[in-house]
C-alpha cells in the first residue's frame, strides 16, 4: 500500500470530487467493459483536470441488475472490472499522484444473490437467518413510501423458499439488511475495514436513511439509524486516525439531512439534494429566488462537516425534493419528451439538459464551484458529454467516456457490439465532436475552461470553507454572494439570465477595497460608498477576490520588511 496523500483531517473541505464509473471510463483489456487497468491508465488525465478525490461507483462482485448497487460479495471486485490486486494498483497509483479515492458502499441492502441472503432464505437456523428483515405479512411498515414507483408496487416481496416476505426499499432483488442485528453491524464494519486497510480514503454510503425499520414510522431517518451510523464513524475514526471520510447519500430535505452530521460525530459530508434541481430552476426562470430560498433554509452544520454539491450524477436528476408544482415546471422545462422522465426525475446529462448551451453550462459550473460545499463533477460532464434516453433505466447517462474520435470513442478496442453500452453518436454530443482529445487541443474548450475554473478554485480556501452571505440587488436575475474565510473575501456574481444584465451591488462594507477578477487577475475599479455597478453578458459570471487597501490587509504580512 502506498502512502496516502498528506493532508489535514478535513481535506475534504477543499477538495473537488470526481464521480466515475469503472465500467464507463476506460477499457484496459479490450472486452468492451471499462476496468481498473483502464482507469489507472487514465489517472494522469484526472490529475491534469485538477480534481482531488475520485468517487468510484460500486465495483464489487454483483449480478449487475442495478448497476452494481446489488452487491453479491463485499470483498470481491466484479470480474469484469479486474481483481482486488488491480484495485490496489489503481489506488496506489492514484495516491502516488496525490489523488484520493472513496468508493461507493451499499449499506442498506445486498443482492438477493449474496450468500448471506441465500443462507438466510434457505436455513432458518443459519447464523444469517436474521441478516435480513423477514415477516410473515406484507402489512407491516405501511407508512414507508415506495421509492422506485415505476417498477415496484410494494416494499415487501414474498420469498417462496423461506415462505415469508422480505423487506426492500429499492428493487425486489435488493433485500434490506437487518441493522437491528448486531452481527450485521459487525459484518459491515469488517467490510469497511477490509477496504480501509488497503488505503481507501473513505466511502460514499448509499441509501443511509433506511437502515432501521419501526412500526408507525415512515422508516426513514430514524434515531436508531443515526445510532448505527455514529457507531460506524466512531470505530473508523478510532482505528484509522480520523482522516477517512464518510459521505452520506440521503435524498432528504436539508433539515433531515442535517441530522446525518450529528454533532460532527456521524457523517463528514452529505449531498445537498434539494439545491440541485433549484439551480436548474433558477436558470430556467432567470430568477435567483429558488437558490437563495433553499440555501437560506439550509440549517447550519457542525464546523467539521461539509455539504457535497453536484449538478448531475449517475442517477436521474431527482425531483423528490421539490413541490408538485416545481416538479411540473421542471418536467416542462427540461423533459418535454416523456422518455426523458424516470421515477420522480429526469434521466439526462448536464449538456443536453442545457441544450448544449456553452454559456449556461459554464454558469452552472460556476455555481457548483462557488456555492458553499465541495463540488462533485460527474465523469464526462467536464467535456459536455451527451446522453441516450432510449437505453432504459439510467443507462443513458452511464455510456462510455468519450476520449477521442477513434473507434468506440477511444474507450475500448473491442468490437463495438460488445461494448457494455453503445457510445453516444448523435450529431451534437457524439464522440466524433465531443471528446477529450479534441478539447485538450482547443484552449477555449469546455474541458480547458473547467481546468481553469478548478484551478482558480484552489486560489482561496474561502471557496470550500467560507461563510455565505447573499447580496440582494434589485435585479432578481443576478445571484451575487460573498464568501469569507479568515482574511480572504470572495465576491461571486452570476447572471442567471440569457440576456445582458446590469446590477448595482451594495458593497459599502467593503468600501476602499478592490475586486480582482480571479480568472484573469484583472483589477476592477475600487469599491466606494456608492452602489457598485457591474454589467454581465448573458449567463456571465465573475469570481472576484477582494483586495483590501494597503495596510488593512497586506497580502502576506511580510512585505514591509522583507529585505
Amino acid at each position: 500500500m502506498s502512502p496516502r496523500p498528506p493532508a489535514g483531517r478535513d481535506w475534504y473541505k477543499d477538495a473537488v470530487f470526481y464521480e466515475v464509473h469503472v465500467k464507463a471510463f476506460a477499457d484496459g483489456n479490450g472486452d468492451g467493459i471499462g476496468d481498473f487497468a483502464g482507469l489507472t491508465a487514465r489517472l494522469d488525465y484526472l490529475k491534469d483536470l485538477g480534481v482531488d478525490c475520485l468517487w468510484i461507483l460500486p465495483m464489487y462482485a454483483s449480478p449487475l441488475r442495478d448497476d452494481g448497487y446489488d452487491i453479491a460479495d463485499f470483498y470481491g471486485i466484479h470480474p469484469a472490472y479486474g481483481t482486488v490486486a488491480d484495485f490496489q494498483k489503481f489506488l496506489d497509483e492514484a495516491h502516488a499522484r496525490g489523488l484520493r479515492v472513496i468508493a461507493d458502499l451499499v449499506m442498506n441492502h445486498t443482492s438477493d444473490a449474496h450468500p448471506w441472503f441465500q443462507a438466510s432464505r434457505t436455513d432458518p437456523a443459519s447464523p444469517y437467518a436474521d441478516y435480513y428483515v423477514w415477516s410473515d405479512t406484507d402489512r407491516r411498515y405501511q407508512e414507508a413510501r415506495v421509492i422506485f414507483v415505476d417498477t415496484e408496487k410494494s416494499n415487501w416481496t414474498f420469498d417462496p423458499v423461506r415462505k415469508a416476505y422480505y423487506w426492500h426499499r429499492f428493487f425486489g432483488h435488493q433485500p434490506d439488511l437487518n441493522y437491528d442485528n448486531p452481527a450485521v453491524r459487525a459484518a459491515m464494519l469488517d467490510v469497511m475495514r477490509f477496504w480501509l486497510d488497503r488505503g481507501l480514503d473513505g466511502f460514499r454510503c448509499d441509501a443511509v436513511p433506511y437502515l432501521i425499520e419501526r412500526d408507525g414510522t415512515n422508516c426513514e431517518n430514524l434515531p436508531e439509524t443515526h445510532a448505527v451510523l455514529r457507531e460506524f464513524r466512531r470505530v473508523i475514526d478510532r482505528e484509522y486516525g480520523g482522516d477517512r471520510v464518510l459521505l452520506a447519500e440521503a435524498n432528504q430535505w436539508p433539515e433531515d439531512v442535517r441530522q446525518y452530521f450529528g454533532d460532527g460525530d456521524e457523517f463528514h459530508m452529505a449531498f445537498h439534494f434539494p439545491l440541485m434541481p433549484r439551480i436548474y430552476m433558477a436558470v430556467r426562470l432567470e430568477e435567483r429566488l429558488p437558490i437563495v430560498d433553499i440555501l437560506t433554509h439550509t440549517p447550519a452544520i457542525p464546523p467539521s462537516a461539509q455539504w457535497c454539491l453536484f449538478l448531475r450524477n449517475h442517477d436521474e436528476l431527482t425531483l423528490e425534493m421539490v413541490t408538485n408544482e416545481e416538479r411540473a415546471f421542471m418536467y416542462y422545462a427540461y423533459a418535454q419528451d416523456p422518455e426523458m422522465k424516470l421515477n420522480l426525475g429526469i434521466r439526462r446529462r448536464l449538456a443536453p439538459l442545457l441544450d448544449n448551451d456553452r454559456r449556461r453550462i459554464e454558469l452552472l459550473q460556476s455555481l457548483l464551484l462557488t456555492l458553499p460545499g465541495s463540488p462533485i463533477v460527474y465523469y464526462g460532464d467536464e467535456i459536455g458529454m451527451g446522453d441516450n434516453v432510449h437505453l432504459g433505466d439510467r443507462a443513458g447517462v452511464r455510456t462510455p467516456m468519450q476520449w477521442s474520435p477513434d473507434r468506440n470513442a477511444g474507450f475500448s478496442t473491442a468490437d463495438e457490439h460488445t461494448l457494455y453500452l453503445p457510445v453516444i453518436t448523435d450529431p451534437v454530443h457524439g464522440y466524433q465532436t465531443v471528446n477529450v482529445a479534441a478539447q485538450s487541443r482547443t484552449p477555449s474548450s469546455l474541458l480547458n475552461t473547467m481546468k481553469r475554473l478548478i484551478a482558480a478554485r484552489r486560489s482561496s480556501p474561502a471557496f470550500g470553507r467560507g461563510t455565505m452571505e447573499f447580496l440582494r440587488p434589485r435585479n432578481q436575475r443576478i445571484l451575487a454572494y460573498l464568501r469569507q474565510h479568515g482574511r480572504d473575501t470572495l465576491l461571486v456574481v452570476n447572471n442567471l439570465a440569457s440576456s445582458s444584465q446590469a446590477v448595482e451591488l451594495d458593497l459599502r462594507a467593503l468600501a476602499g477595497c478592490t475586486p480582482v477578477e480571479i480568472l484573469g487577475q484583472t483589477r476592477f475599479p475600487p469599491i466606494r460608498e456608492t452602489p457598485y455597478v457591474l454589467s454581465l453578458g448573458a449567463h456571465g459570471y465573475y469570481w472576484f477576490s477582494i483586495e483590501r487597501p494597503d495596510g488593512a490587509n497586506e497580502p502576506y504580512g511580510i512585505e514591509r520588511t522583507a529585505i
Partner: protein
Amino acid sequence: MTDTTPALAPPPPELDRQLAALAPCEIVVGLPTYNNAATVPAIVAAVRAGLAAHFTGASAALVNVDAGSTDRTPELLAEAGMPCVLARHEAPSVERAAVPFHGVPGRDAALRSLFDVARRLQARVLVLLEADVTSVTEEWIERLVRAVWEAKADLVTPAYVRHRYEGTITNLLLAPLVRTLFGRRLRQPFGGTFAVSARLLSHALGHPVRPTTGRDLMDLWLTGTAIAEGFAVWEAWLGPRHVESRTRTTDLPTMLAQALGAVFAVMEQDDELWLGVAGSEPVSAVGDHAPPSATPATVSVDRMLGAFRRGLRDLIEIWELVLAPETLDGVLDLDARDVLAYRFPDRLWARVVFDFALGHRYGVVHREHLLRSLVPLYLGRTAAFVAATQASDGAETEAVLERVGAAFEAEKLYLTERWR
C-alpha cells in the same frame, strides 16, 4: 557590458569650495537622500549626539548626496547644525518614477560620488546611513565607527534586532547566498548602513573591476571585494530598524528581483570573488547579539501557499527552462495543499536558487521574467519557514535559519561545477 546609466553629473561648481573649507575631516557621515525631509532632522541629531559623546574632538562632516528631492531635504540638512557638504546626482528618471527597493534612485551613483568626496576629505572613516531609517541612535554611530576608528575593521556591516518574520528575503535568500558566495556569515548583506575604512575606500576606488555601471551593485561588490582581498569585515549590532518612507516599494516581486538581480550581477561581473571560496565563518561583532523576537505576527501562510500554488499553475513553463529536471521534480513533489504536512527542504531551496543563478548567467529566460518567476517559490519557502517556526522561540528560529545557510554551503559545489 554596456553602459546604460547616465554619466555622473559634473560636480556643482561650489563642491570644490565646500570640500576645501572642510578638509581634512576624520569622520564622514554619508547620507543619500530622496525626499526624506520628514526623517532627516532626527537622524542628524542622533549623529551629532553620537559624535559628541564618543568621538569628542574628531573632525566630522555630513555629506549629503541628493537624488533630486522636491521637499527641501538638502536645505534641512544644511541647517542641521553640522558641517555639511551638499552634492547632487542625476538619478535616472526611470528610477525616480519607480524608486528601487532601498528608496534612493541611482543609489550606486550616489555611493560613487560619496566615496569620492570621502577620499577627498581624507576621511579615516566613512559611515553610511539611510535617510528613512528612524531608529538611528547615538549608539549606532559609536558601534559603526569604533572598530574602524581603532583600525580593527575595514568594513562594518549592520545586524538588526528584528522580528523573526521580518527580513524574509534577506534571511532565506540573500544572507544564505552571500554567505555561501563569500564565506562570511553576514546577517544583513543589504543592510544599507555600513562603515568603511580609508584603506578599503582607496582600494575600492582604484580597483580595476569596480562596477562603474549597473544598479545596486556597489554595496555587495564592496563587501565581496573586502572579504576576498583580506580586509577585516565586522558586524555591528545596532538594535531595531524602523523605516519611515514614502518611496520604498512594498511590492515583493520588485524587491526580490532588484536585490537578487544585484547579487546575480555581481556574481557574473566578478566571479573571482566567490568561485574559489568554500565553507564560511562568522564575523567579529560589536554590540550585543540578540535573537529575533518571536512575538505573534499576522503573516498569512495560506496566502503565501496560494501564491505558490498559482505559480505551480502559471509559471511551470518558465520553471521548466530554469530549473534542472531533478530540482523541478522536487518542487512538483511539494504538496502545498495542506499547511500541516507541508515542508520545503533546505537543500531543495538551495538548488532552486542556484538554478536561478545559473539561468540568469546563461540567459535562458528574459532576466526580469526569470527573477520575478522566483517569487512564488520564495513565498512557498517562506510559508514553510513560518509554518515550521510558529511555535519556536527566537533561538530556535535562528537555528532553523542557520540550517538554511548550511544547506546553501553544502550545495555550493553544485553551483560552481555548473558555472564554469
